[in-house]
Each structure stands twice: as C-alpha cells, then as structure tokens.
C-alpha cells in the first residue's frame, strides 16, 4: 500500500472512532433526557441549548478529576480493565455494514468476530471488579462473569438460525440475503438475541453487576474520573452495538423503500436504542438466580428449539 492509502485508512479509522465516541456521548445525553421525559421531569437542560452540551461538561469534569487508584487495588489490572470495555465495542463496529457499500471490513467470519469480542468485553468488567479489591466490586464482577457465560450460549445459538438462512457469516451478506427481514423468519431467534443482548450490555432489567441498590455500583464502585468514563462509554457503545447488530441480523439492515440505506439503518438502530431506554425506566431488576434460571432453563432450550425448527424447515424449503 502506498503512503496515501495508509493515510486515508488512518484518517477514516480516526473519523469513525471520533464519530462513535460522539454518538456515545450524545446517547448519554439522549438517555437522560428521554428517561426524564418518561419520569415526568426535565433532565439536564442547563449546559448549552436544551442542555445539549451536557456530555461535554460531563467529559470535562471526569477528565479533570484526579486519576486516583485505591491503595488496596491491583494497580495494573485496575488501570487496564476499563479500557477493555469500550475497546471491544469499538473493534466490533469495524464489521458492521451501515449501508450497501458502507463498511470498514467485510470479514467472512464477521459474526464470529463480533461474538468473540463480546466475550472479551466481560473481562473488562470482571477484572475491574476483581482488581478493585472491594467486596461490592467483587460481587459485581462475579455476577457479571456468570451472567455473560449464561447469555453467550443462547445468543450464539440464536444466530445460527440466521447463518443457516443466509448461508454466510459475513454481516454484509447476511443483510444482502434479507429480502424479507429475518425477524419474520426467525421471530424466536430475534427475541432470544435481543434479550441476550440486553443482558450482555448489563442494562436494566439485567443490570445486576451494577445494581446500585444492593451493590452500591457493583464492579465500578471504586472507579472514578476518566476510568469511570471508560466504563460508562463502554456501556453506551455496547447498547449501540447490540442495536446495530439486531438491525443488521434481523431487521434487514439498510433495506427499506424510498430512503437511502444509511437512513434506514440509522432509523432502525435508533428505534432499538429507544427501546433500551424505555425498558430501563419501566422494569425492575431481576434477581441473580432468576437471571440464571432465565438464561439456562428458558433461553437456551428455546434457542436449541429454534435451531431445530430452522434446520428441519430449511431442509425442505432450501433443497433447490
């Protein structure tokens, strides 16, 4: 590759990164305003017009805080852990096709790549909880690990149906195969993937690793300043990623009449993000053992069942 190509690639990577970080920041503002709306209050409306500069103020505040490491923490791991969380999410975006010809990398194993990165993400949270060396954080970290393991399986299994229908692991080809969105062909798979996705992002009603009422703030109790901001950012990027993946895998990605593909993609993703916010304000949190029961006793068999049905039906229909 020539130097210009290198520079162009780097510039585009930088732009995408910046764009994603910006979206993450806007999401934090959006969530607070929308939650406020649903809860009959105003939300942040002081910084800038309509409070739009609130994320800027938040970031400035968090960055200017002292980079404090508790004396009892495992210094190395404590510092590395928060970086893992947003990093895995950011890396996953490389394979997400936003429109017919708008993607960064068209890996032929994109789906596996995304699942692998989402498994790595748990390390950030678990190690953060472990390295803090505080009891609340430890419990939060342990919960997180158990939760991720329980929800990874049904999540992966739910996707096998999609792979069967499209015959590819490439996200671009999966979207291309969706003349009819897979939500119609795989309704069960859609539900399982969505629920597992919420669990993967640690959002209500599955926010047990955080559970501020019982565990103070769970895995991030001992975190502050910019390290806390990383966890925070990671959570929003996770929501964005799951919403984008659901769009790509089940809602037909860029497909849609009249409007350009990117707009359709953005609209579908936005709708899913709003669903995430809505769930957060409406539902109480599940209990740890109930969460496990749901994962192993309901979601896993359901995913296997879905797989079986898809395989059997596929055998007859896709012969030719």
């Amino acid at each position, binding site marked *: 590759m020539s130097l210009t190509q290198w520079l162009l690639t780097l510039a585009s990577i930088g732009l995408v990164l910046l764009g994603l970080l910006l979206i993450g920041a806007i999401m934090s503002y959006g969530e607070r305003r929308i939650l406020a709306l649903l*809860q009959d209050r105003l939300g942040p409306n002081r910084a800038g017009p309509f409070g739009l500069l609130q994320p800027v103020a938040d970031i400035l505040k968090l960055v200017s805080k002292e980079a404090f490491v508790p004396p009892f923490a495992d210094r190395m791991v404590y510092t590395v852990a928060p970086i893992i969380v947003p990093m895995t999410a950011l890396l996953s975006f490389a394979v997400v096709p936003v429109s017919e010809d708008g993607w960064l990398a068209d890996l032929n194993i994109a789906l596996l790549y995304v699942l692998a990165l989402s498994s790595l993400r748990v390390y950030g949270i678990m190690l953060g909880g472990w390295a803090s060396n505080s009891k609340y954080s430890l419990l939060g970290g342990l919960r997180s690990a158990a939760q991720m393991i329980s929800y990874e399986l049904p999540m992966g299994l739910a996707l096998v149906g999609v792979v069967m229908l499209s015959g590819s692991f490439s996200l671009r080809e999966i979207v291309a195969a969706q003349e009819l969105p897979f939500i119609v062909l795989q309704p069960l798979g859609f539900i399982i993937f969505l629920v597992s996705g919420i669990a993967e992002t640690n959002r*209500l*009603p599955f926010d047990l690793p955080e*559970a501020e009422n019982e565990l*103070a703030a769970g895995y991030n109790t001992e975190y502050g300043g910019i390290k806390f901001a990383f966890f925070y950012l990671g959570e929003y990027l996770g929501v964005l990623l799951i919403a984008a993946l659901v769009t790509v895998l089940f809602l037909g990605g860029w497909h849609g009449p009249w409007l350009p593909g990117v707009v359709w993609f953005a609209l579908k993703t936005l709708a899913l993000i709003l669903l995430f916010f809505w769930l957060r304000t409406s539902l*109480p*949190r599940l*209990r740890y053992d109930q969460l496990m029961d749901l994962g192993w006793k309901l979601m896993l068999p359901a995913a296997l069942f879905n797989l079986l049905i898809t395989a059997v039906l596929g055998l007859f229909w896709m012969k030719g």
Partner: protein
Amino acid sequence: MADKDRTLLTQLQTLFNAVPVELPRDKIDTLSVPADRLIEAIIFLKHKAEPHFEMLFDLSAIDEAKRGGGLTVFYHLLSLSGNTDLRLKVSLPEEAPVLPSVCTAWPAANWYERELYDMFGIHIDGHPNLKRILMPEYWEGHPLRKTHPNRATEMPPYQLPEARYRAIMESYRAEDYREPGMSDEEMLLNIGPTHPGTHGLLRLVVRLLGEEIRDVNPDIGFHHRGAEKMAERQTYHSYIPYTDRIDYLAGIQNELPYVLAVEQLAGITVPPRAEVIRVMLCELFRVASHLVWIASYAHDTGALAPPFYAFREREYLFDVMELITGGRMHPNFFRIGGVALDLPEGWYEALQGFLKRMPAAIDDYQALLADNPVFRARTRGIGVLSAAEAIDWGVSGPNLRACGPAWDLRKKRPYSGYQHYEFEIPTATEGDALARTEVRLEEIRQSLRIVEQAMQNMPPGPVLSAEARYAFPRKEATLQDIETLIHHFIAVGRGMSFPAGESLFVTEAPKGMNGYFVVSDGSEHPYRLRIRTPSFPHIQALKLLAHGHLVGDLIPILGSIDYVLADVDR
C-alpha cells in the same frame, strides 16, 4: 374492665407477689412485680394466662430520682386475642440495677433490653448481646438518667485526643471474617451507614456465603436525636413539633398519639369538628407515607420510574396540606384539645382535586409494581413472616396484617371517632414482601375512602377545646381583652401544668402501632416521655426475615418492611 381481668389480677397477686399500682390515668392495669419473680410472671402471662398476652409491646424505664429514688422498669404487654393491655412494673435500685432478660420469651425484647442498658445503665442478666444500641459504644453515662445532662452546654467542653479518636474509629471496625468458627468461604459485607439501599443511616453487617445471607446484624443509632430526653425540658405544647420528626414521613400521624395521650392524662374532650379534621389529616398523611414507601421500595427493586410518579402525587398532596396547615411534611397542626386552626377557605375543592387524581395514580402503581411480572418474581416468597413470629417480634401495622391477623387499632380500639367511618382492613396470608406490597396499596385506597367520608360529614363548631386550663386561648380573643392575652402569654412562655399520672396512647400509624407514654409529675414538663415506634421492632426482625436469602433480596426485604430511621432511633 371485665371480670376476667380482675381474676387475672388476683391470680398474679397470689402467684407472683404482684402488687397493683395505683391506677394511672390510662386505665391500663398496672402491677408491680418483684424482679426475681418477673420471668415466671412473664411466662405465665404469655402462655397460661387468660387471655394470653402474646406481644411485648414496649419495654423501657423511668428514672425516679425526682419521685422518690430508684428506677422503675415497665413491661407493656399486649393481648391480641383478648384486646387488652397489662403493664408490669419492676422497681430497681439506683446503684447497680440488675434485671433478668426476657429474650427467651420474646425475641423482640433483645433490642429493648439493650436500650434499657444503654439509656439507664441497667444490667440485663442472661442477655445474649448486651451492648449499647442507640448511643455509640464509647459514650459516657446513660442519657435517660436524670443525672445525665440535658443540654450540651451543661457538659464540660468536648475533648478528642488522638488516642481516643483511634479507639473510637476502631469500635466501628467489623469483626474480622477470619475469626475462628467462621469458614474461609464466608465473607463479611458491611452495608452502610451510607448506602443507596438503606434509605438513611443504617448499618447492616451481613455475613455472606457467596451471595447467600447467613446473618444480618443491623447497627442503628446513627439517627438518634434524644427525642425522649428532649421532652423532659419542653412544655407539653412545645413538644408537639418534635413529634412530627419522629417518623418524618408521617408527620401529623406522630402528633396524634402524643396529643391523645396528654388529653387522656388531663381528661380533655375534643370538639367533634377537630376530631374529624384530625382523622382526615391523619389519613392523608398515611397516604403520603405510603407514597414514599412505594417510591423507595420500587427503587429498591431497580425500577426507575415509579419513584417519580409516587413523589409527584405526594407533591399534590402536600399542596393541599400546605393550604390547610401551613406546613408540608411537619405541619405541627394538632394542639392539646383540638387543632391549631379551622379549615381555610377553598380546602374542600383543593382536596377534591387531589382525591380525583388518586384512583388513576394507584392503578398505575398497581400496574407498575404489584402486577408487574418481574416485580412479582422479585418479591414473592422473600422475607416471609408467619403470624406467630410477627407477634413474637413485636411486628405491627401492615407488616402484621400481611401475615393474617386483621389487627388494626382503628377498628379494634377506635379512637378519634374512627368507629363512625366505613372502611376495610386489607389483610393477606402469605406474609412475604409481595403480600406487604398488596396490603399497603389497598390501604391507600381505604384511607382515601375515609378522607372522603370525613370531607362529606365535616361537622360545624369549634376546633379547640374550651378547657382553659389545658388548651391555648383563642388568638383572636387575645387581641380583644387583656386577661386572655396574659393567659396566652403565660401558657406559651411558661407552659401549662398537667395533672400527675401516667398515660399511654397507641394509634395505628402508617408503619404500625405508635405509642406515646406520658409520665407527668404535675409540672409543666413531662417527667418522662416514652415513644414506642413501630419501626424499631421491625428493623430488629430483619435478622429473621433476611436469613437464607440472597444479598439481592436483602434490600427489597428491607424496603418491604417500610421503616424510617428517625422512627427507629428517635
């Protein structure tokens, strides 16, 4: 009182050398029992007497230093089956008083006896864990003794040398979890005093195996303000604002038992209009208290929106409250002999406006909480209490009614004219957190019914008793004639003296049975004021409720018993 009680009294006299004490002014049979026969008498009363006295309602003491010396410990027993009370008194010497523990009969006695030790320096023989409870471990002296200073200015300047500071900090350290006898896998988790799930300053030392709770030890006293001691230097009237702040979520509901106890002491009758106003405001405050409970409880389970909805409705209620009383959370509106002011213009319409919006709001809470599958899954079967356990632990109010007994003092012992209202007592049988939720939601509906009836049947007439010796003169009259002005001046400045005697009044507060025991020596100040709050035994019972559950259940269980730390610590 019935003949049955008379036979009980003679039985007690012959069996345990009990001596009837001159009748106090609350018509509760009172007997003095020698300390060495106490346990036998207690066991007899709990298991054999007719009727059984199932509940230890209250246990505290009076320092008799100014009334002939020594200490008097009183046990207030309650018979739910016979709907009657009995007070046992034990006289102890001032120096080195010792009392046998009744923890074996009632687990609820544990904390009450610790309070006795803490406040009066009475050593309890055979107590499993005799430590200070409300005061910090390093406190010097026993605050409710008459020799203990009443104000900080009466004490020498406070000194805190470095070594003492270290010792104090050390006293808060939770015992090390590697102590012998505890397995290595157990973990000691210190929740609080400041923690998002404890709704105030409450420390819970939790012993965990994984996430399973092996033991919970609540550490209270962080909100102790010495309300009982303060009463001893206030006049009877000037203490009313303090009562507001005991259970600060139920403001006026605390004033009621206090003024009723004092009125009973002085034999004052309250004009009917004042009674109806009292009932109406009390029920509104029950709603206000339950609304905060909904909010905090929903938040405990992780639901984010219901707290805001419940607080919004409470805000509308406080607007009405402000119109009527001038205050919001702490109205200071009841007076001995009536209420402070007549209802203002426009109260009816304002209240009607509030009542109109409530049914829909309650349906919302019902949908968001009691009918929500996630919430039901979270709260069903946790913190289960059987009726017998509840009574043994001194549990009352909605928490008791959620285990079965329809024990509500508004029905069982109607006061302030509650017998004239039509309402139901919601009960449940499961005794778990979900049952408590459902009972309280229904209670809001019933309270609104009472408010509506009070509004429709508001009688005309004065709102303050004309009994000039005990009730304030009318303010309007003080502006007209000099006699009344002088009386008002003296009554407010110096206070009014109330007849000597002892008077307990118990009401059904939003959180349970709330009792004020006023001991008067005939002066302008209460000689001793005992406040029996419902939250104190409720928090004590947490140990029983949380055992064996997951740490994620602890906070919902705690939330489901509806307590206020100020009500626990006083």
